[in-house]
Structure formats: structure tokens, C-alpha cells
């Protein structure tokens, strides 16, 4: 209400947000240019597609993690849940011989069920998210081994299963750009989640939960129920990741997924989402996942020794986030 509130013209405001959004890509663009200059093998359609594909599983998991992190929680179970859903999919399709859509639906439902469990532990039993999802991680890891009989399950009897992630619908229209379906699935999952976060009640309450859960409760909203809903949605997305990875490997590997949770969370945080909840975007998470994929791919293309790859990755993650912080400070000051 003070005259101190400046009212820039809508056009200028639009431009400013536009510039802002582009700048968020700064780290990514910087890396891409750097690697392109360093190696001629980097900037090639096939490699860009490889990078996108490499980002797809981690990207989907990171989208799931973003949802939970926005509510002020954390989800350590994403990797184990992905594996569990892949195994469920394998059991349904290969062991039980059910048709493909049922296998996919089963994987996603398994994810939702697991999300409902984590969510209930967190919202109803008040177990801290870190512990609830750490416990779920161990439980799911064990169950994946039990259910699969500690053997990988192959999808050889389900023709078309590998197409889910590795086929390319785009190729039919743009033969020179054979983007695999897995990448499309990542973008679809990200787009839908971004819409839900930005435009629906579920999204609104996700931010509200992370911002001030008590205030949300005092506003008469059934905060617990919504929180469980968000964990369930995150679980469902992990189910999609499970289908994706199973399709890509044409098998459900019951021991896969260790350490994936940290990668996913790292993508989320690099993308500017705050671990204390209340703020964050899916676009940021996507960029975060891409930054990680580009970085690792680029270092490998440059044949950097693996021990140094780790060192460089660590440094650049810190640097990328630091640059992002500086950018925000500038933006806030301007």
C-alpha cells in the first residue's frame, strides 16, 4: 500500500521474468558450450539423445522427490521404490503373463500404495519424513529381492515392452530426430506435475504444507489427507520410473537403485528447490537433472579419469548452486 511498490509495465515485467527463466538455464548452457568446445563428439544428435535418455530416469525420480520436498519433507525411497515397481511389473507380465497395460498399471499402483504408506507414516504417525522414507527404502529393497526371488525378471515374453522407453514415436514424424519415448515420458510427467503443482488444489496445498503446515491446518484444511495424497502421487511417479527403467533394461533388476535417491534429491536442489519446503519448480528440477546428465556425459566423453570425474562433478554441483544463489541475489537487489 505504500507508494514504494513499483509497478513496472506488464511488458517489462514479462521480459524480466523471461530473462530470469533463461538465466536459470545459465549453468546448463555454460556446461553445454564448454563441452562442445572441448570435444567435437559432444554436440551430436546421437549424444544429445543419449544425454536426454540418461536424464530420463533420474529426472522422473527427481520430479517425484520435488513434490515431497515442496511439502517440507524428503523422500529417500524413490530409488528403491522404482526398483520395487519394476519388479512388480515383471511379476505381473512375465510370471503371471498378464497383458502389458495391466503390468504398467500394476507398477504405478504399487508406487501409489507405497506412497500412501510413507505418507501415512509421516502425516498420521508423525514419523519424520527422513526416517519414514529411509525405512520404506529398506523395506522396499528387501521386498524387491523377496518378490523377484533375488533374480532379474526378463520381459522377453512381452513384445513391445522395451519400446516403452527405447522406441521412438518421434522418429515416425521427424526421422532425423529419433528422440526415445522415455524422454517424452520424462517431459510428459514433468509437464503434468508442473500443471498440478501450479494450477490445482493439490499443488496449492503442497506449497502451503511446506510453507506453514500449522497455518494450513488452522485454515480448516485436512492437511494430513493432502499430505498423504502428495506422497501417493510421488509414489505413482516412481512407479512410472520403474516401468521406464525396466523397459530400458528389458528386465527388472531387483538390486538396482541404490544411491539413486541422492542423485534425485541433488537434481531437485540444483534446480533451486529449497529443502525446507514451500518453494520449488519442476522446471528447475528438470534443469537440475539435465545439468547432472550433461556433466557426467561430458566428462566421460572427454575421457577424464573416473576418480577425477567424481571430484569435478562435486565441485561443479557446488559451483552451479553457488552461481544460482548469486543470480538470485542480483535479481532480488535489482
Amino acid at each position, binding site marked *: 500500500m505504500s507508494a514504494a511498490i513499483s509497478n513496472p509495465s506488464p511488458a517489462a515485467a514479462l521480459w524480466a521474468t523471461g530473462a530470469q527463466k533463461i538465466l536459470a538455464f545459465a549453468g546448463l548452457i555454460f556446461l553445454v558450450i564448454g563441452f562442445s568446445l572441448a*570435444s567435437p*563428439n*559432444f554436440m*551430436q544428435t*546421437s*549424444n544429445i539423445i*543419449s544425454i536426454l*535418455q*540418461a536424464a530420463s*530416469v533420474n529426472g522422473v525420480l527427481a520430479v517425484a522427490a520435488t513434490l515431497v520436498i515442496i511439502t517440507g519433507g524428503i523422500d529417500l525411497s524413490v530409488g528403491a521404490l522404482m526398483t520395487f515397481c519394476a519388479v512388480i511389473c515383471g511379476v505381473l507380465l512375465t510370471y503371471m503373463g498378464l497383458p502389458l497395460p495391466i503390468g504398467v498399471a500394476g507398477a504405478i499402483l504399487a508406487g501409489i500404495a507405497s506412497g500412501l504408506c510413507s505418507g501415512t507414516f509421516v502425516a498420521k504417525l508423525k514419523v519424520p519424513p527422513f526416517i519414514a522414507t529411509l525405512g520404506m527404502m529398506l523395506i522396499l529393497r528387501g521386498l524387491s*529381492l523377496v518378490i523377484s526371488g*533375488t*533374480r*532379474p525378471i*526378463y520381459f*522377453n515374453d512381452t513384445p513391445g515392452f522395451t519400446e516403452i522407453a*527405447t522406441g521412438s514415436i518421434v522418429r515416425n514424424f521427424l526421422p532425423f530426430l529419433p528422440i*526415445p519415448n522415455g524422454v517424452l515420458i520424462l517431459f510428459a510427467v514433468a509437464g503434468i506435475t508442473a500443471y498440478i503443482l501450479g494450477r490445482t488444489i493439490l499443488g496449492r496445498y503442497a506449497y502451503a504444507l511446506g510453507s506453514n503446515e500449522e497455518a494450513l491446518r488452522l485454515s480448516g484444511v485436512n492437511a494430513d489427507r493432502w499430505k498423504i495424497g502428495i506422497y501417493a502421487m510421488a509414489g505413482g511417479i516412481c512407479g512410472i520410473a520403474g516401468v521406464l*527403467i525396466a523397459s*530400458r*533394461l*528389458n*528386465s527388472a*533388476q*531387483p*538390486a*538396482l537403485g*541404490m544411491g539413486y535417491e541422492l542423485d534425485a534429491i541433488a537434481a531437485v536442489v540444483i534446480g533451486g528447490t529449497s529443502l525446507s519446503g514451500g518453494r520449488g519448480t519442476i522446471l528447475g528440477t528438470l534443469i537440475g537433472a539435465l545439468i547432472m546428465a550433461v556433466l*557426467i*556425459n561430458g566428462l*566421460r*566423453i*572427454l*575421457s577424464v579419469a*573416473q*576418480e577425477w570425474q567424481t571430484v569435478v562433478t562435486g565441485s561443479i554441483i557446488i559451483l552451479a548452486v553457488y552461481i544460482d544463489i548469486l543470480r538470485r541475489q542480483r535479481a532480488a537487489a535489482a
Partner: protein
Amino acid sequence: AAQDLDIALISKGFQHQFWQAVRMGADQAAEEFGVNVTFEGPDSETQVDRQIDMLAAALARNPDAIGFAALDSQAATPLLRQAQEAGIPVVAFDSGVDSDIPIATAATNNLAAAALAADKMAELIGGSGKVALVVHDQTSRTGVERRDGFVNQIEAEYPDIEIVSIQYGAGDHLQSTEITKSILQANPDLAGIFGANEGSAIGVVNGARELGRDDVAIIGYDSGQAQMTAIREGLMAGAITQNPIGIGYETVRAAVAAINGEAVEEEIDTGFYWYDADNIDDEEIQAVLYE
């Protein structure tokens, strides 16, 4: 009476198919000899201290014999000595234990096996060209021995073959896939890749397939359904297999013999084999492969 015998096997890993095959062999022997066998191993071959804790817990159980595949022989020595003092016979398996405590060792010679892979690789690419390795681990004994066995053989025998890249994918199928793709991207003229364990080998096959590169000679290690299919379909030229079921079986057999005070052979070489599309269905090979 024998039913009460309790044998604890502590392996280097657990979830990987190779170790499950070892477990299968151990279970076979357990059934045959009517003993109880437990099988445990850490999540990855770097977790030396976790394995020590497992060994300590197994000792606390006071078993009749212990089978042990050491991640690091030295670290385990005090506990092994404790076993010796308690009169619990120890059988080493997989890659041996540098110590005189184990009464027998059922193992594969990884160095020699990887050297065989190098010979086959040279044969496949005609003695010259670029090759790369995707290995599961940079520090564990199996990882190091398979890498060195392959590299040393190439360096010693095939001067025209250049090793352009050695990367490590933790035996994780997906990570190994991505690694393979970037190696191929960086070296468009690569002639062959060696995947040093099951997960690495499948990752290599996957990566080459996703990039549509069927011109690369791929050699794997161990078996499992995916590798066998890849070999039958011609995606993989062939692979080295150990005899994991035999390792598990022999370990338990030696343990039972030791408990019963019978004489046991000190070195049980369980052997390794090269298999490809031609001999994969041979009885001898089928006996050492696992799905």
C-alpha cells in the same frame, strides 16, 4: 545328526546373480549333505568393514564351519584367527584368502580368466584397433584382477591394440549402459569392449544396442539370462564364465569334509570357460551357466 550342522557362508556380494548362483550351489550341497547353510554378503564389494561385521556375527553364532570370500584378507585376519582358535574350520572361496588359516580354497583364477578374454578380443578384432573396458569396481580384488588380467595380456601380446578407456560402473546396469554410450560417443572407431562382470557386460550390450552399434565386438563375464540371450542373438561375441555353482558346492562340500575330519584338497580350482554362440549349448558349458 548332520542336520544340526551349521555352516555360515560370507560372500563378497549378495544381490548380484553371480553370488546368487554361488548360493544356489551351496544350497544344492546343503541339501545333498543334509546341513544348514546361511549365505550373506555386503551390498557392494567396497564394504570391507560391513563384511567384517558379518563375519563377527557369524562367529558369534558359533557355527560348525565358515565359508569366506574375503574382500580384504588382511582386515579379516584377526577374526579368522579367532575362528581357528575356536576350532571352526574356514573354507575360502571365490578369490582366496592370503592366509594359512583356510583349510581349502575354492576359487577362480581371475587374472588368467581375464587374459583369456583379452586373447579372444584380439582374435575378434583381428589383432589391432581400439578397445575399452567397463569394469564394476576400481578397488575390489575381482575388479582389479579382471582389469589387470585383460590389460596386461593386451599390452604384452598385442602391441597394435590400444586401450582407450577404462571406466567403472559399480556393476549397475543402467550406469554401465550410460558409460558405454559415452565411450562409444567419444571413440566412434572403437572396435571392442570388455564388460568385466555381469552387470557391466549387460550395460555394454544395452549401450551398444541403444546407439545401434552392432559393429563393436563385445565380450562379457559370467552368465545370466541376458548375457546368454545376447550371445545367442549375436549382440555379444562371447563371455568368460566361472563356475559359481561349483564354487558354492565345493565350498560346502569341503566344509562338511573338514567338520567330519576328512582330508580336503587345499586348492580346488573351479575353473573358467569361454563360451560363445557355438558352444553355449554344450553340456559342459550349460553346467556352469546360470540363468
